[in-house]
């Protein structure tokens, strides 16, 4: 890394030594897990570049934007509407973190039995290693699961710019009204932060921009229906992860480029794995960078992942916002309609999610489902039991996995996943 970046990191208040350690681990993991894959499609070089510059160039860009007066807003959940942020001329970056860091410090503030995602978010703050977090002008926390909403109470003591968004937990008329009023309140807060008032024109543009980014991901997903699979689940997951922090226009263009390459591959019947490789759908908790443990084990055990029913995946990206509205008020309603369909497990009841999993199994011709939960994540762990039961009643083999970010259980997981693959073969 260049000296220029080091001073940039120091200016952001990062702990340079700890940060070096983090980048070392990240680089090694990327090397071992990603770059060792065979036959990667053309265009993946883009993601390799993005990952190699994840704390470098992208941060430089964000800081340049800040310099020019743009605000940076960080989010921990797919319920934070990017449309509103973009329309106020600000940038949204995802902050959900996928690695254990500074756990000793974290466990002074959070119970040990807190999900890895929440612990990680604290670890990155306490360890002073996340340049995204340190660049934000506003951090949006949302009242989703109990773990997160209570954790934000503590996070509020660690950061100066936390904004809390309330979310409904029941999909009802009242629930929708709450979401609408929270999105209106968020709009006002973002306008205040940026000093920019959202207009029909700016909101329309923002909606189109985010839809374009989602459409590119939809295109990528639909190409994964092919057998042999033209892209590995690892690479597709990476695209879904990069979705959260890359520049939207560049991301859209690059993903579309990769899709062009994949279409050629499909025409030539070329794949990353041989034809008839067992196909797996992963469903459950978000998998944030650099949490690549599960897909790595699956794809080195003789199966390919063909879809992610996850916030970092189809749950987060599947619906588009209606582009036909004219007024700001109509567009705000359209945005609420779009986000209201996200079937996160914090909702009760949540039958749409099960339906969506079944649809995905059919669409992507999956032979089985791996339900992925982070240890101590009550909403997804609880749902995993009913999901497994319902799927098995329909003769869809299902394996429930409960894990965290540590590497302790890799041997165990490998045995279970290999046996599951033997089972569905």
């Amino acid at each position, binding site marked *: 890394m260049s000296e220029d970046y080091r001073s940039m990191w120091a200016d952001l208040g990062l702990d340079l030594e700890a940060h070096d350690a983090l980048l070392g681990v990240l680089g090694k993991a990327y090397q071992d897990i990603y770059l060792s894959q065979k036959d990667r499609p053309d265009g993946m070089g883009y993601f390799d570049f993005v990952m190699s510059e994840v704390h470098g160039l992208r941060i430089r860009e964000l800081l340049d934007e800040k310099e020019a007066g743009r605000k940076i807003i960080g989010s921990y959940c797919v319920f934070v509407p990017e449309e509103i942020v973009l329309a106020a001329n600000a940038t949204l970056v995802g902050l959900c973190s996928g690695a254990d860091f500074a756990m000793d410090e974290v466990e002074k503030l959070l119970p040990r039995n807190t999900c890895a995602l929440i612990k990680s978010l604290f670890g990155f703050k306490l360890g002073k290693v996340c340049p995204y977090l340190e660049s934000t002008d506003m951090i949006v926390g949302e009242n989703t699961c109990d773990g997160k909403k209570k954790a934000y109470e503590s996070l509020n003591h660690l950061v100066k710019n936390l904004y809390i968004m309330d979310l409904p937990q029941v999909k009802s008329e009242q629930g929708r009204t709450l979401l609408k009023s929270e999105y209106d309140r968020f709009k006002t807060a973002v306008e205040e932060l940026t000093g920019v008032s959202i207009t029909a024109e700016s909101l329309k543009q923002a909606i189109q921009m985010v839809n374009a980014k989602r459409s590119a991901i939809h295109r990528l997903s639909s190409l994964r229906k092919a057998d042999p699979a033209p892209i590995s689940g690892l690479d597709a997951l990476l695209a879904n992860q990069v979705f959260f922090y890359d520049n939207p226009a560049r991301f859209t263009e690059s993903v579309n480029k990769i899709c062009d390459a994949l279409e050629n591959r499909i025409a030539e019947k070329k794949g990353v794995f041989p034809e008839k490789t067992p196909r797996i759908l992963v469903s459950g908790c978000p998998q944030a960078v650099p949490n690549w443990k599960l897909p790595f084990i699956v794809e080195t055990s003789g199966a390919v992942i063909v879809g992610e029913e996850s916030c970092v995946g189809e749950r987060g990206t599947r619906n588009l916002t209606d582009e036909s509205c004219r007024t700001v008020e109509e567009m705000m309603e359209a945005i609420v309609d779009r986000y209201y369909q996200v079937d996160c497990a914090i909702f009760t009841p949540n039958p749409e999610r099960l339906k969506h999993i079944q649809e995905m199994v059919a669409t992507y011709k999956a032979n089985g489902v791996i339900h992925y939960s982070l240890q101590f994540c009550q909403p997804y762990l609880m749902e995993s039991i009913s999901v497994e039961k319902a799927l098995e009643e329909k003769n869809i083999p299902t394996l429930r996995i*409960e894990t965290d970010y540590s590497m302790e259980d890799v*041997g165990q997981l490998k*045995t279970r996943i290999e046996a599951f693959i033997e089972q569905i073969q």
Partner: protein
Amino acid sequence: MCFAGIDIGSRTIELVVVDDAGEIVLSLQTDTGFDPKSEADNLVNGVSFDRIMATGYGRNLFEISFDAPTVTEIKAHVRGVLAIFPGARTVLDIGGQDSKAIVLYENGKVKKFEMNDRCAAGTGKFLEIMAKTLGFEIEAFGREALMAKKDLNISSMCTVFAESEVTSLIAKGLSRREIARGLHTSVIRRAASMINRVSSEGDIVFTGGVAKNQCIRKLLSEKLGREIHIPDDPQMIGALGAALLAADNR
């Protein structure tokens, strides 16, 4: 032709060789020790066979040094069990550090399995440590527990906590046999709930080192109210299954 299967477990390594007809011609066992790779190499050394397949948690070590294909313990156990009990539909395997419950379709394919996650609670390792704490030889542990006059409730399943619970029960002057019986009961409770999660009726084939323990066998069949079949050498089933799979793939 001859086919070998090697099962590299956390406590022991087994090697079984079968002939063309699937009859066992040789079976060997050794402790895994600290260097499973060398132990496995030693075991295989001098044994002749045409093909070999590896299973068990150390299967990948072996894959590298012998360029042998591998299967999971689950598939290997099922294959081994079906050779001895062709109609089996439910398999319970409790080994050194893992326990598994497997249900099969009528055609012998795996329908569903459950496996303990990371800790050793309810496995051979747990019994081994508890036997030591109570001062019993592992071979005698089950026999002594069987002779207890009454049961006793041990609440901890975690090896660390159970150990201290046992120590304090000894200090209270309770009989070692009764404590042993309580420990066996707690292992059974766990195994039974794992079995019940995947299958609710029919006979069970019980394999793995722990199946040799008389007390576990008796308590388990009482608790479940289901017939339990145990192969003559329950520890060899994984290696036998691997050998038969090597033969199937010929």
